[in-house]
């Protein structure tokens, strides 16, 4: 079993004026000019490489950090690299107002903890805060903020604990 309570530093993905960035598509997360890369570890270097103001994210991110993203994050194509590049950087979880349908499917299948948290940008949390996330209950707390996100569905938790979708199937067959 993996931990169901995660602790880490958060990044609020905003524009230059600190406003929530919505509709970040998979091409902004991982641009198609890097699609030739097949080694997942390599992919980390290009995470957010096409999102204005965030090109240097890979240098700033630390293992164990947590992303907090806006509405419809990961819209667009079914690009698995847009999930894998964050895994490569050691991002622990992605918390978001809402997600593109295919992005959500890819993230869940690859065992990335994905927490749906409508309203999180109004919760008072700031970039750099350290938070605790309870995946099973959806509680997100920092020193001075308490927020209730949607609990992670048991299906997603099953896959997260197994590692990814294929590892989960392995367990099914015993």
């Amino acid at each position, binding site marked *: 079993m993996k931990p169901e309570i995660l602790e880490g530093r958060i990044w609020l993905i905003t524009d230059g004026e600190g406003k929530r960035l919505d509709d970040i598509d998979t091409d902004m997360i991982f641009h198609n000019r890097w699609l030739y890369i097949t080694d997942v570890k390599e992919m980390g270097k290009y995470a957010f490489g096409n999102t204005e103001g965030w090109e240097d994210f890979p240098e700033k991110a630390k293992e164990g950090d947590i992303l907090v993203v806006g509405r419809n994050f990961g819209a667009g194509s079914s690009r698995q690299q847009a999930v894998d590049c964050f895994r490569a950087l050691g991002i622990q979880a992605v918390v978001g107002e809402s997600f593109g349908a295919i992005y959500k499917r890819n993230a869940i299948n690859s065992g990335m903890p994905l927490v749906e948290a409508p309203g999180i940008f109004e919760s008072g949390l700031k970039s750099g805060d350290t938070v605790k996330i309870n995946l099973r209950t959806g509680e997100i707390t920092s020193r001075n903020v308490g927020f209730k996100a949607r609990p992670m*569905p048991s*299906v997603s938790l099953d896959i997260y604990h197994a590692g990814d979708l294929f590892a989960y199937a392995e367990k099914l067959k015993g």
Partner: protein
Amino acid sequence: MPTIVEKIFQSHSKDRVDPGEIIWLDLDVRTARDFGGPNVVKHLRKHYNSDYLADPQKTFFTFDLSVPAKTIKYAVNQQVCRDFAKETGTGVFDVDQGIGTHVLMEKGLVLPGSTAVGTDSHYNILGAVGAFGQGMGDTDIAFAFRAGRTWFEVPETMKITVTGQHSATARDTTFAVMRELGSKGALGKAMEYYGDAIDSLDLAGRITLASQTTEMGGIIGFIPPDKRVLDFLRERSGREANPVLADADANYVTETEIDVNGLEPLVATPPSPTSVKPVSEVGKVEIDTVFIGSCTNGRFEDIEAAARVLKGHRVKKGVTLKITPATREVWIKVIRSGVIDILMDAGGVVLTNAGCGGCAEGMCGLVGEGEIEVSTTNRNYPNKQGPGKIYLASPETAAASAILGRIATKEEVGQ
């Protein structure tokens, strides 16, 4: 109270079924086609040593895109699937059989209330017989092959009631629905269709309507099966076929009423399947070529309707009319019923083997720069079928256009 999708899911899951919940869903059928299939095999071989399938009896390859293989790559990929099938006992509907989802319906492999997934974005066409079908990527389908289940987020359901009578076709009814809902009108939702304009549709017409769910952003569009559809499925499957119906007070997110009384023939102008206009308003559009077929309008009834328009006429000089039956069964019927004679007498007609034909990377019906086509396929997005321009239309409008060399209704050729 539960809608159709909620009832089907509840009978295939131990989890609590409520819109927005993600559940484990047991699958009655899972398939992969020649596009996607080889990757499914690759994933299974990479992750597991053996024991690749939960149940070979419920697992199939359906070759329908490049049939028989038109490039070496397709030939190699199809053989990857055949070899895997031999080793594991997976069923194969080979290059002679036609469009996978249509074959599933014809062979009685899906019934109302069944759950099925495959590597095909129009898998939700199975809503035509009241079954749940869903297209997925190769990772998900590999998992489905091995586990016999998948996970799915329970969608909310929209109720759509279509009423009224007209002398146009099922495709025109479908256009009317798309004009109302638009390309995102059903985004992430299940739909249920009701009303007398739906009740009167035969299976071919239901297939046409259900095939456009994806173009409206929908997850699935259910057409509750009537006696004709149930009789067909019973005969084909040799099993009892009972409809799964919504409760009278089922919970719908929206209810939409669409009146199609007196509807005239419509077309979807490039570059979007939802930019719908009456034929009478598109003006004089001269065309180069016509395609009739695809999972949307490739049934025998569709080709027969086109033949009725063509009878006693000729395809205009300089215009070609390409016809691709959806399945081998349709193809044989076109030949044995004599419809073939009408088609050949019209000149300019190419009848291909069964499959996806002019769609996607299909074997025919692609358009060159500057070429204008009238097509019964489901999409006319830029460059999907080549750089030319594609107007989507019913088989009748397509046939009339072939005769006159411009976009026209069957009335304009005197019918």
